[in-house]
């Protein structure tokens, strides 16, 4: 399970936290943890927004389409 991390005010979200070990993963397509994150959420692993609410349905699809 993953959760987006709120960024410094006025900067876009670019970090996701892997909740199993609290690791923080940047949105970098060369980062292997990020590559696994993308595979996981496409395969249905839960992604929460910065407040802890699950992102589902069209909102999830839209979010995935914005990822690098």
């Amino acid at each position, binding site marked *: 399970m993953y959760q987006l991390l709120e960024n*410094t005010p006025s900067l876009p979200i670019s970090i996701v*936290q892997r909740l199993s070990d609290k690791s923080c993963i940047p949105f970098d397509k060369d980062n292997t943890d990020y590559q696994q994150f993308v595979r996981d959420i496409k395969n249905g692993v839960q992604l929460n927004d910065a407040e802890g609410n699950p992102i589902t349905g069209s909102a999830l699809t839209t979010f995935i389409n914005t990822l690098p």
Partner: protein
Amino acid sequence: MTVTISGTTGITSPGGDIITTSLVVPTINVQTINAGSSNTLSLQTNNANALTINASQQASFVNNVSMPNTFGFKNRIINGGMTVSQYNGTSSVTVTNAYVIDRFAIRCDTGSSNTEGQSTTAPTGFINSLVFTTGTGASPGSSAQNRIYQGIEGLNVTDLGWGTANAKTVTLSFWVRSSLTGQFGGVLNNSAFNRSYPFTYTISSANTWIQISITIPGDTSGTWLTTNGVGIGVFFDLGMGSTFVPSSSAGNNTWNGSDYRGAYGDTAVVGTSGATFYITGVQLEVGAQATSFDYRPYGTELALCQRYCYCVPGTTAGDRVGGGFIFSSTGGIFYVYFPVYMRASPTLLGTPSPISLNDSTAAYAASAVTLNGSNVNFAAFAATSSGMTAYRGCQAYFTNTQTNTLLLTSEL
């Protein structure tokens, strides 16, 4: 002077006299050329010395030397001597799929209570090894993976020409020791996991170091990355399920268009409770022969490792981590610059050791530290606390006297 030509003793003359001849012989097949006790042996081309070897066995080349395995970065394996251990120091750990020491990851799907870590048990010429000790022990399931792994970055194997007709032969060598005997193995594969070369070797004596050398012809097929992705994956098999090994020995020691991570018939180290497996001196070099281990300066080896893992160290309360600013009563940002450009923007691995912020008037222990942003040469961290005053500069430092870590990884 009498010159004797003997099939047993070779060409000899009384007193080791120099034999001079203008005779041109296309090929001379000899076992020993002996210049005598005090003479210099010379090899000439175009009537000039190309190589001389004096009576003290010191060799001098007159012109450039070209060898298949270059003098610079001969060994494409990083931390092959297992000396750099930023992840866990000298501690033994139990992992299911993680880097144990720098550049060497262990995946262990089978059994429980397996332990891994840096060891001081090593063969002559080395001070460290990577050790795996089986815990409860169990037979690997069909899809289980138990292995030691290093992914070699594609940018470090651009000269090999794999996937082309000019693919170069490489030789993998390493020292290994196990409490078990029998056939062991491993694999070289590509990043797409559709080309693999399962190799085998034998350990005949338990608990005895042995050096293994495996020569592998370059793969002329498949796609082999020359980018910052995985150029060549190197696996050492600790017990692979049947899904990940050839169905017979015919698939061993040859290139396959399949996803293999071990060889057919390998001993499953994970199958025996208490079994040990040590490895060090791992070297992958161009050419058909293993040469001496490429001992690099420790600082060089550490820097090579830091492209993939950077541990901000600290052992004492107050050891500085970085500088930054406070942007609210509950939040601050601090920065860490890396000593080496990393392979990719790194992950902050796990939870860092306790960190505090000091704005020159007071100290604030952070209740949480998360990654706020990173690229290949620096990272910004967000620290959460309370009672702070916004718009002040601050220093971040480790709160406690202990082995502190803040680990950033961009491994393959």
